[in-house]
């Protein structure tokens, strides 16, 4: 039972296709996670990477906070259920379930107990001695589940386990799996392409498309708040209705002009308050989404609603408890293909095909998406605000607010549209400009505050202690503001990170740049390892010496003499026991076989007799017919009938016989397997006991030998560990930017090697450095200062960094303005982000 962490997991095939890219997710203990998506979206690949059946190209996988990228599947403590069951056909159900435990050398009694437990949980007790081929699909999948649960794994992985079952069995197994999750309290990861399974089983669902995560959320949130067009369309049956539309803003009301439709909706401002202003012009097409239950034809709803569209009914699907009404948007203007609408209703409302009616839209439940990027433009948690304001004397006027802009933002007096990220607005009780809070919402873990400034609505994140209509102060992070005149960018925000190119080097290659400066570092690392392991070695030696002292005086010969008769007796009794059991088995098998023979013959006899009597009856009736009948036509018809009967009769008889014989054969085989399996277990138990007894006797006689062996093993393992540690200590790595080689810490080095293996040195990297991670230093790389930007609280030096091939601006956070025209800077390597450039793999 454990949590999982997937960090920037990639699967890249040798030909360059990315099956999975940048899969990052935290899975908590006992969660039921479902990966869902169309085929080829990488969900199974991700699961197989978690299982260890597929290599992870880049990224890290943690199970229980241990990195397991290079751990064999068997040592990851996971269990997997396959789509095609993957049962071992030559083993009985019992052996199939026990196989994993047997390979782990558990004592037989314990295996037996556990198998019986699993069989009982899954209702398989009576099938334990059958072979998989004598079972149905559902039963086979249950065996496969049994094989997985018996080891009590940390994580259960299920790869489309129900795809091969028919619909009824599938529903039944689905509830069984849900129950199993309740009972076992283990983390489940379940892959499926069936959204019903995803929605009913998962505590959280991961929707994937083309190797990328589209959205991770609870089933309810996926349904109610899809992040993008794909999730909106994929989740929910029937599919969400989509309408292409343009939005426009006009005084008090907003307009939604639906494409290919005659109706235009006038809606209140509040419905569209979170949509960025850029979507209210005619350039940006948006897609509106409505679930079928949010469009209504109910009479009273339509009468009271203000948001109506005209639709033309095309057909109905009556599902009993509800009716799906298929319609088209009424379109008077163009001859383009009409947009389809599906409406859920309680009945057909007496409508018929071709009727034109008004349908009411529930705009509270509307979804808005950008038609190009397909992302939602009406997010639950807003990210940016757009405000319209005026700049006068370098002071920004938003409605009745006056915000003084810092020196770094130099703007001529004009009307501007300003993009203010939500994070850039900081609420507090004392500093900045005073505002009144209009609305406080709580969405997931965020408290979102809306502040109304004339036409502008600003969103900000608040801490806990905010109330409605309260007055408070806001401060802006000026570095993140962007100013536009019309659509022209006038002032750009400073990005969170500077991006520079870098190379990854080992110590020897780096010597060209750093010389012998880092040799002492290596020596110190090596020394540290040496002292640590010397202590460990000493400890082991001391323990060994102490233990040796205790057992020194054992008289081996006396002990052997003492134990000899005991061993003899035990061996004899074991052999006796086994041969007795064997005889019993033989007898039982013999009697079973005899019974089986008798059964087969009696079945054959019964069937023969039954069918013969039918046959005789038919012949008799034919003969009587022949005697009384005089009509030739009727006679020839009767002959035909008889022929037909003869042929069919033979076939039927054979079928019946086969059916009954098959059933008998399966029974017989099951019984034989049960006997044999029992005998095998008894025999193994007895032999193991004997072996253990002998071993104990040997150890009692020669304790020194045993100690020696143990000591040798410990030393050997320790020595291996020591060698590895020493090797690691000797190797150090560097990141080279310009002419600066920065020593990597072990964490970064490990991640780099983990992600890219031997290719790590031949790749180019993009290093992202936060502005305050720079330090002025003589050893750093040279940059040319272009200007000093004063943003009030913080000051940045805008610098030009030149490499051989390219140049870029970097922003260095500084305290003092007088720094000259050229700087040497280095950076704190633990705070950077690293991305591999060619394949765009995020590493750190």
């Amino acid at each position: 039972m454990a949590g999982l962490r997937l960090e920037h997991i990639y699967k890249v095939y040798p030909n360059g296709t990315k099956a999975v890219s940048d899969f990052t997710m935290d899975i908590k203990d006992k969660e039921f996670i479902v990966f869902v998506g169309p085929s080829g979206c990488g969900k199974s690949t991700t699961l197989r990477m978690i299982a260890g059946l597929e290599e992870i190209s880049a990224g890290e996988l943690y199970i229980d906070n241990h990195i397991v990228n290079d751990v064999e599947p068997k040592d990851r403590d996971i269990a997997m259920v396959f789509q095609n069951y993957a049962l071992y056909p030559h083993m009985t159900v019992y052996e199939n379930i026990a196989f994993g435990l047997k390979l782990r050398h558990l004592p037989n009694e314990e295996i037996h107990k556990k198998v019986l437990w699993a069989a009982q949980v899954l209702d398989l007790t009576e099938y334990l001695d059958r072979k998989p081929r004598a079972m149905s699909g559902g039963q086979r999948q249950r065996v496969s589940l049994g094989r997985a649960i018996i080891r009590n794994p940390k994580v259960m992985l299920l790869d489309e386990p129900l795809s091969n079952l028919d619909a009824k069995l599938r529903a039944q197994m689905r509830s069984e799996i849900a129950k199993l999750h309740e009972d076992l309290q283990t983390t489940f990861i379940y892959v499926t392409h069936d959204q019903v399974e995803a929605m009913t089983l998962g505590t959280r669902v991961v929707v994937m498309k083309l190797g990328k995560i589209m959205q991770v959320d609870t089933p309810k949130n996926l349904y109610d708040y899809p992040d993008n067009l794909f999730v909106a369309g994929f989740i929910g049956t029937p599919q969400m209705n989509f309408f292409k539309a343009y939005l426009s803003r006009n005084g008090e009301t907003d307009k939604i002009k639906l494409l290919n439709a005659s109706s235009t909706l006038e809606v209140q401002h509040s419905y569209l308050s979170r949509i960025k202003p850029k979507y209210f012009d005619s350039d940006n097409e948006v897609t509106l989404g409505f679930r079928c239950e949010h469009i209504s034809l109910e009479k009273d709803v339509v009468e009271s609603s203000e948001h109506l569209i005209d639709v033309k009914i095309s057909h109905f699907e009556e599902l009993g408890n509800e009716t799906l009404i298929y319609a088209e948007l009424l379109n008077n203007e163009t001859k383009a293909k009409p947009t389809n609408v599906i409406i859920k209703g309680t009945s057909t409302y007496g409508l018929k095909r071709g009727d034109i009616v008004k349908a009411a839209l529930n705009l509270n439940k509307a979804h808005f998406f950008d038609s190009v990027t397909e992302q939602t433009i009406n997010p639950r948690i807003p990210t940016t605000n757009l405000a319209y304001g005026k700049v006068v004397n370098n002071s920004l006027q938003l409605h009745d607010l006056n915000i003084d802009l810092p020196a770094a933002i130099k703007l001529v007096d004009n009307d501007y549209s300003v993009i203010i990220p939500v994070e850039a607005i900081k609420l507090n009780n004392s500093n900045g400009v005073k505002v009144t809070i209009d609305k406080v919402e709580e969405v997931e873990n965020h408290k979102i505050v809306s502040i109304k400034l004339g036409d502008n609505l600003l969103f900000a994140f608040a801490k806990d202690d905010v109330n409605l209509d309260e007055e408070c102060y806001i401060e802006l992070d000026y570095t993140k503001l962007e100013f536009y005149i019309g659509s022209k960018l006038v002032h750009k925000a400073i990005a969170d990170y500077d991006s520079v190119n870098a190379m990854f080097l080992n110590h020897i290659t780096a010597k060209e740049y750093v010389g012998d400066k880092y040799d002492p570092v290596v020596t110190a690392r090596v020394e540290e390892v040496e002292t640590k392991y010397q202590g460990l070695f000493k400890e082991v030696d001391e323990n060994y010496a102490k233990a040796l002292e205790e057992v020194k005086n054992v008289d081996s010969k006396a002990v052997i003499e003492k134990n000899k008769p005991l061993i003899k007796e035990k061996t004899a009794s074991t052999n006796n026991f086994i041969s007795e059991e064997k005889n019993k088995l033989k007898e039982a098998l013999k009697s079973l076989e005899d019974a089986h023979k008798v059964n087969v013959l009696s079945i054959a006899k019964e069937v023969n007799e039954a069918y013969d009597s039918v046959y005789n009856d038919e012949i008799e009736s034919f003969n009587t017919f022949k005697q009384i009948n005089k009509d030739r036509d009727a006679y020839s018809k009767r002959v035909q009938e008889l022929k037909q009967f003869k042929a069919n009769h033979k076939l039927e008889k054979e079928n019946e016989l086969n059916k009954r014989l098959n059933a008998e054969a399966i029974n017989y085989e099951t019984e034989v397997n049960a006997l044999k399996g029992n005998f095998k277990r008894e025999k193994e138990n007895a032999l193991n006991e004997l072996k253990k007894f002998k071993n104990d006797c040997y150890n009692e006689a020669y304790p020194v030998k045993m100690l020696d062996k143990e000591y040798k093993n410990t030393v050997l393992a320790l020595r291996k560990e020591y060698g590895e540690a020493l090797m690691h200590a000797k190797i150090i790595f560097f990141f080279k930017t310009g002419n600066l080689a920065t020593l990597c810490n072990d964490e970064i080095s490990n991640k780099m090697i983990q992600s890219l293996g031997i290719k790590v040195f031949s790749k180019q990297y993009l290093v992202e450095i936060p502005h305050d991670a720079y330090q002025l230093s003589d050893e750093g790389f040279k940059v040319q200062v272009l200007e000093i930007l004063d943003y009030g609280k913080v000051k940045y030096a805008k610098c030009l960094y030149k490499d051989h091939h390219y140049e870029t601006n970097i922003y260095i956070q500084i305290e003092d303005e007088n720094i000259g025209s050229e700087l040497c800077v280095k950076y704190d390597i633990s705070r950077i982000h690293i991305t591999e450039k060619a394949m765009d793999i995020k590493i750190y």
Partner: protein
Amino acid sequence: MKRFKYLKPIKSKDMFYNEKNSRGMRFKQKTSNLLVYTILTVISLIWILPFIYLVLQSFAKTYSPQVLIPTEWTLDNYRALFDPNFEMIFNNQPMVFAQVYPFGRWLLNTVMIALVVSVLQTVLTLMSAYAFSRLNFGFRKKYMKLILIIGMFPGFLGMIITFYILKQVNLSTGVPGLFGLVLVYISGSVMNYYVSKGFFDTISKSLDEAAMIDGANKNTIFWRVIMPLSKPIVVYTILLAFTAPWGDYMFASVIAAGDSSLFNVAVGLQQLLTKESGVSGFPIFCAAGVIVSIPIMTLFFFLQGYYVEGVTGGAVKG
């Protein structure tokens, strides 16, 4: 069918034919069957005739090539092969045949070599086929093609070189030469990977994966999961591996270098026919031929009963 061994299956011939067409169809079916069986009978006669000839001649007192059925019958030919004290007239001279031509020794040599080779070669072939089928290593496909291409060259092309190599390691003559022979036979085991690889490819890979997750390593998977499912191919490989050294002439004669105690049956029988002029040794040769073919036939009769179908039944979706 194994389940119904106490009962004869009911034949249901002609049961599915439509009543109207049945007469014409049945006639057509019967004629075509007749034709097919006639052709098959003729072919099998042609095939079996040499063998019948061999068996009959092995009981002949004197050899006369023109007659199929010998005029005088005797078991002396068989006795001569094994009895070291049995004197007979050979090429108009009395001689103790088994002392000049130690057929028993040849047979022993051959059996030992063939047994060792068949075991080792089966293991090696199947293991390499499994590796080619399941493991992912560099140049796997190229390596497979290379082996196929090399396999197209006749083995004796490299015979001289092989012989010199064996000479370097002192395995070219005498009794060690027989070990050398075993080495030469099994060294080409990997060449036969193709059929078994094809078979392993049909076994679902998810079985391997399930076993891997259950805690098995590659070795355990091979022996405990794949092998029990591969009986037909094991049998096939054993048969193949047994027959090759059983009938090999070329390299065995090089190694034996004329020392009759090191002959295998093929070399020995060839010596028997060419060394002595005339045809008086022919009935003995036939007797030896019959004896040599017995083990192969028994092997085949016992092992042919394995069916591919049904072995994997129930393993995967079905």
